[in-house]
């Protein structure tokens, strides 16, 4: 389980972000891919509604369609990169990470619940830790820095309530 030094990993991540700026004229993102997926799902079920919803419509009319959008391809890459790296490091394991005494079901519920909140939050904030904190942060965007402060503040406020979830023993 030899993780890389966090600062070196940070430099590597920063260089990836820089490469995105230089070669694609934009930064990284993650939540946008989920928004694209949600938009396409709605469109598949109710195309007229999807086109009429200002939020979903924004993700639908990209050249090549939502599924071919830049972010969706990038996220596919994230899966691949994560997978390859985990396998090469011997860290691939079919498991549900959780604290001692926490049932898999309750952990999955927390993960899904937290994910839902993040989905809503990222929708309002126009991004997540990748799109706003990393990308917007590096570009010195006021809104991005406001997002960073708000998100970390809320995280630190909520975490104590969930301490039991990550007990070591």
């Amino acid at each position, binding site marked *: 389980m030899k993780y890389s030094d966090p600062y070196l990993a940070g430099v590597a991540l920063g260089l990836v972000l820089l490469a995105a700026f230089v*070669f694609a004229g934009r*930064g990284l993102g993650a939540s946008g891919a*989920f928004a694209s997926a949600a938009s396409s799902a709605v469109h598949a079920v109710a195309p007229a509604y999807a086109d009429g919803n200002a939020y979903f419509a924004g993700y639908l009319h990209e050249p090549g369609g939502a599924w071919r959008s830049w972010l969706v391809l990038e*996220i596919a890459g994230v899966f691949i990169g994560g997978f390859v790296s985990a396998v090469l490091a011997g860290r691939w394991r079919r498991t549900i990470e959780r604290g001692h005494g926490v049932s898999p079901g309750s952990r999955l519920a927390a993960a899904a619940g*937290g994910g839902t909140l993040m989905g809503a939050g990222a929708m309002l904030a126009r991004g997540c830790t990748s799109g706003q904190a990393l990308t917007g942060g590096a570009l010195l965007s006021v809104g991005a820095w406001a997002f960073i402060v708000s998100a970390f503040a809320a995280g630190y406020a909520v975490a104590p309530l969930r301490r039991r979830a990550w007990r070591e023993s």
Partner: protein
Amino acid sequence: MVTPLLIGIAFGAALERAGLGSARKLTGQFYLTDLTVFKVMFTAIVTAMLGLFWLARLGLVDLSGIYVPETALAAQIAGGVVFGAGFAIAGLCPGTSCVAAASGRGDGVATAAGMFAGMLAAGLAFPLLAPLYSAGARGAWTVPDLLHVRSGVVIFGVVLMALAGFVLAERLERRA
């Protein structure tokens, strides 16, 4: 089409190597036992920030060709709070949930599923959320413009804060 894929692969690999595909490691941030999230994120921000400044200065990159996300303070603060709460509960963020899922972690899959549901719900609720969403939306707005200070000075400030943060992080971890 190849560019986003390659960038994504590098992104995912960097996150996984840093250990950010593990919810247990990520949540250490909030309990001040493992501050990897802070170290990785801010080192990345500083690296990209400095890299962009100097590449532009050397004429190798045209800053006006880079898309700066828009600022909508009310929505981004509200969204940030909701997002941060979710992050603390799930232990993974959108990008790292994909890395976790790709590493076999079921909780990564659940988080990603939750993200999808959350975005779906928020999109469906857009008519209700629209006033908050659009409040004060003012296009790209950078800290140098806000403070009427040149970007190089802001960058220096950010780097100083990051370095101080790293020193603090090392101390906190040693005490944990």
